[in-house]
């Protein structure tokens, strides 16, 4: 029997993957371990290898298709084996698969190439025309519905019931909450999750969809919101919609950081081959400040505030495709040299799309640096489920008053956004003050 | 001359020559149609009035231009006599867009409303009530026209005949019923289907005049119809005139004529109304042999031209299919 090829679930949060390319065509022979296709998840691009030897019998999806995890996307088997014309759905549904295969074996001797609708109600289901129409437009298989009519005939009422249930059980609690708060019907929302599960983002999108479209704006090109961009969009939307953001700003005298950097530059470079950056120092200082203010190193999961033991600082790296946040684990235990080494490697891997899954996991706090631009301050958005994020602007020579004298000092504006559900203003302010003090007296980092 | 013929004043010498030519037009038209049917160039069915030319030409000659006729399935002669163009008629039989009915009516449905021809009719007896209705219009609107209603011996057994004669009679309508008794309703001989010698006698049942005329005597037909028409025009109600005639051809295209004998056909052919009228006109010096021949050839040529016109005409576009179902 042919072996299923399915969309792997590469992380606990992964619900769908986007197909980037096929390395094999139908009819090509495949060896176990050979890359079969490449996908993009919410975090990374990855090549998926074949689990079985044989021939690629059938591909059900094309490039750019967004496919739920565990969905059967291809079959590998022996030449001339018969497989279904359309994806039988979720892998592991043995009975269904068996049935489909037997049925098609009777009907067909070879794989039909022609394109078919992904959801085709089976012919022998008794259903009213209206029920068929509603099922069709909602991608519901009629044979999954128990009809209330004579001899199990499916009526539109039955389909609607399934729709309501689906919206009920297939919407995240958060999505339900948001939809309720905004009085938005879940039925009208197309879920982006597995099997159309409605995510909070979907609700959020539907809420302000109306206000977004402005026909008077002329566009030069349109790009589908997909892949990483879509993930970012969803994440940001989710954060803004759920976490009440408060942003504190402060101005930090970077004179001593400048000195420290200058002094350590050669030492670090000789070890790592990289120039020590302000960011490295800021990460180190942040890790130090977090260790002194553990409340800022928290995650908010549903109704629980989790104080994290490890202090893992995510570093926002800007790529053409969007933003990616590799993680430097356990910052307080690392010296500037190590931090420099890790940070540069992660950034490089990110740019080459070579990040490993674990290099993207586990951040407890994020630093976003826009100091390379003419940006003084900004309001960063929290990377949920983290509860705070630090944004750093450029370092600028400014007149400041030091000991009753006006002096020109390199200063840097920092912004701390925190999730007010988990953190209140005072502890956040204390943390920011701590950070300011550390950066204005950075030598203690060497202690 | 007038004394000899004793014809109505509107029948001038020229009109007599026209009538002679007209009878040939009718004959040549139907003979041509017969040929084309045989060749398969005309489809459907058709009913020829060869041998009945004097009936059509004579009865209609009695009318004024404002008068109207209703015709039958055997109606080409009536149509020509009422002034229709033979080219447009032929085109209709060819099913061409230039035909009287844009190719949608065919042989049995040619109408020329402008000339007062309210149309042929494919239903035996179907046109009789229509003639009564048209006569009612004439009366109610005081239009002064008379309707000449043609039908055959077969139709005189239809209910519509009896109902219509009665209705026209009680309302005193200006309609003259012309029963062209050509001896056969399809294969049914009139003598077998009607148990009185003269259909004209049925008029008495409805309180109207009934007359019998020789269908090959053009002059008698004109005079008899003329008197009835003018009587009706004067408000004296309808009349029924039975024209005894004979169709030389079969009922329609596929008639083996098993119901009658060659001898009988030959006997009627010998009474040919065209020949008889020609002899009369020559005798009365209206025509010479040469002139008669010339008129006959003109008629023949006109039918040839009609055929050419029809052949060169376009078929109706399929787009016109749904047109004219409703006004």
């Amino acid at each position, binding site marked *: 029997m042919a072996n299923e090829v399915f969309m792997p679930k590469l992380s606990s949060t992964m619900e769908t993957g986007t197909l980037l390319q096929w390395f094999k065509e139908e009819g090509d022979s495949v060896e176990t371990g050979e890359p079969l296709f490449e996908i993009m998840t919410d975090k990374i691009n990855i090549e998926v290898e074949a689990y079985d030897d044989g021939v690629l019998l059938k591909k059900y999806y094309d490039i750019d298709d967004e496919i739920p995890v565990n969905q059967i996307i291809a079959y590998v088997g022996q030449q001339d084996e018969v497989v279904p014309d359309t994806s039988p759905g979720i892998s592991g549904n043995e009975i269904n698969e068996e049935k489909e295969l037997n049925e098609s074996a009777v009907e067909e001797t070879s794989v039909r190439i022609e394109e078919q609708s992904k959801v085709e109600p089976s012919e022998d289901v008794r259903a*009213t*025309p*209206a*029920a*068929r*129409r509603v099922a069709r437009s909602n991608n519901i298989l009629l044979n999954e519905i128990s009809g*209330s*009519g*004579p001899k199990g*005939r499916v*009526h*539109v*009422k039955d389909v609607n019931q399934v729709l309501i249930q689906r919206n009920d059980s297939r919407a995240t609690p958060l999505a339900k909450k948001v939809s309720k708060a905004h009085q938005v019907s879940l039925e009208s929302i197309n879920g982006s999750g597995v099997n159309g599960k409605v995510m909070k983002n979907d609700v959020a999108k539907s809420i302000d969809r109306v206000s977004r479209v402005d026909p008077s704006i002329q566009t030069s090109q349109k790009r589908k919101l997909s892949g990483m961009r879509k993930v970012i969009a969803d994440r940001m939307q989710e954060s803004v919609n759920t976490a009440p953001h408060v942003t504190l700003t402060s101005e930090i005298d970077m004179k001593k950081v400048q000195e420290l950097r200058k002094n350590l530059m050669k030492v670090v470079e000789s070890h790592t081959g990289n120039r020590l950056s302000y960011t490295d120092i800021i990460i180190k200082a942040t890790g130090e400040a977090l260790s002194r203010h553990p409340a800022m190193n928290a995650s908010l999961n549903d109704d629980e505030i989790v104080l994290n033991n490890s202090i893992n600082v995510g570093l926002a790296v800007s790529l053409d495709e969007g933003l990616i946040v590799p993680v430097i684990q356990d910052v307080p235990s690392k010296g500037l040299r190590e931090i420099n080494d890790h940070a540069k490697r992660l950034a490089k891997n990110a740019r080459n799309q070579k990040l490993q899954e674990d290099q993207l996991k586990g951040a407890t706090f994020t630093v976003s640096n826009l100091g390379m631009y003419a940006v003084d301050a900004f309001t960063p958005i929290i990377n949920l489920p983290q509860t705070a994020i630090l944004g750093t602007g450029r370092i600028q020579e400014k007149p400041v008053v030091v000991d009753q004298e006006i002096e020109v000092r390199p200063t840097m504006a920092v912004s701390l956004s925190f999730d007010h559900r988990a953190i209140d203003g005072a502890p956040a302010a204390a943390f920011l003050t701590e950070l300011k003090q550390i950066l204005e007296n950075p030598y203690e980092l060497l202690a | 001359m007038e004394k000899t013929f004793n014809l109505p004043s509107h029948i001038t010498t020229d009109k007599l020559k026209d009538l002679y030519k007209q009878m040939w037009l009718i004959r040549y038209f139907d003979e041509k149609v017969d040929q084309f049917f045989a060749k398969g160039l005309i489809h459907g069915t058709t009913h020829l009035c060869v041998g009945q030319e004097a009936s059509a030409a004579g009865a209609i000659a009695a009318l004024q231009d404002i008068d*109207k006729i*209703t015709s039958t399935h055997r109606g080409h002669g009536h149509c020509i006599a009422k002034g229709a163009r033979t080219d447009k008629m032929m085109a209709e039989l060819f099913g061409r867009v230039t*035909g*009287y*009915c*844009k*190719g*949608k*009516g065919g042989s049995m*449905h040619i*109408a020329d*409303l402008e000339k007062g021809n*309210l*149309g042929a*009719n*494919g*239903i035996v007896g*179907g*046109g*009789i*009530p*229509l*003639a*009564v*209705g*048209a*006569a*009612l*219009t*004439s009366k*109610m*609107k005081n239009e002064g026209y008379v309707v000449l209603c043609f039908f055959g011996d077969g139709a005189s057994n239809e*209910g*519509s005949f009896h*109902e*219509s004669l*009665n*209705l026209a009679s*009680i*309302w005193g309508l200006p309609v003259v019923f012309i029963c062209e008794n050509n001896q056969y309703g399809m294969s049914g001989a009139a003598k077998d289907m009607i148990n009185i010698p003269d259909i004209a006698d049925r008029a008495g049942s409805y309180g109207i005049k009934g007359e019998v005329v020789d269908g090959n005597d053009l002059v008698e037909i004109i005079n008899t119809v003329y008197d009835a028409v003018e009587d009706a025009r004067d408000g004296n109600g309808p009349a029924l005139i039975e024209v005894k005639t004979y169709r030389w051809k079969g009922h329609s295209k596929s008639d083996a004529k098993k119901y009658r004998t060659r001898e009988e056909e030959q006997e009627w052919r010998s009474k040919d109304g065209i020949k008889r009228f020609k002899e009369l006109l020559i005798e009365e010096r209206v025509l010479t042999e040469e002139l008669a021949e010339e008129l006959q050839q003109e008629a023949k040529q006109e039918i040839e031209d009609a055929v050419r016109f029809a052949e060169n005409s376009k078929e109706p576009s399929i787009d016109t299919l749904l*047109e*004219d*179902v*409703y*006004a």
Partner: protein
Amino acid sequence: MRELTYLEAVREAMSQEMRENNDVFLLGEDIGVYGGAFGVTRGMIEEFGPERIRNTPISESAITGGAVGAALTGMRPILELQFSDFITIAMDQLTNQAAKLRYMYGGKGSVPMVLRTPAGSGTGAAAQHSQSLEAWVAHIPGLKVVQPSTAYDAKGLLKAAIDDDNPVIFYEHKLLYKTKCEVPEEPYTIPIGKADIKRSGGDVTIVATAIMVHRALEAAEKLVKEGIEVEVIDPRTLVPLDEETIVESVKKTGRVVVVHEAVKRGGYGGEIASMIAESEAFDFLDSPIKRLGGLPVPIPYNPKLEKATVPQVDDIVEAVKETIRFK
């Protein structure tokens, strides 16, 4: 506003048209001093005289054909057939003449006539005086078919029918003659081919004609007590049929009951049901299209049997529930 009975509304429409247009006249059996079999024309002969209120002999073929002939030549006759059952005797003139002349003649001529006739059971008049044969005429291209259910509709539609240049068969329901509603005094037209939503509702569409409109409305009142909201559509004209209004309603409700008094087998409800099934409304159907019609028997004399022959209010209630029930 003043109220008129259906019968008075029909009479008023005719009288107003006759005052405006001398070409409009009435013919039929016993329509003179008798006032028509149901009294519709009562008083009209006194106003318009026997020339324009033409009492006819019992000759349905001749009077129908007479109306056709009069219409073809410039009149606008209104023909009253005493009982719609008698349309059988007029059928040749309607089907083969009135409906076809214009098309057969290639778009020449028109037949602006109205044939008014009372239809339906409920009077105890038994098999030959109680039928609803509207499907017969609805089948014929060239005829228009109107079936008003209220006095208001009857007046407006009859004016439209008289003004129409085509033969219009205008069905009046005997049991509706005495029904009343508000009817404006001034003449007005309801376009032929426009359905009327007699009641709005979202659960089930009932398409009902003539008397069944009222029974459907009664049924709707009963059903609303059970929480079922019925939409009642009265097509008002069968030909042309306002398909859009019906389709839109079915798209809204997903369920439809078609009800008429005529025998269900071969009845016009089959046409309406098929039209729905072929339309975009198909995809909105959530239960089979339900048809209600008369049983396939001649209308019996006994009142209990007669009532059982044609759909009653409770039958409609039951049919609606059946379309809603899943089992």
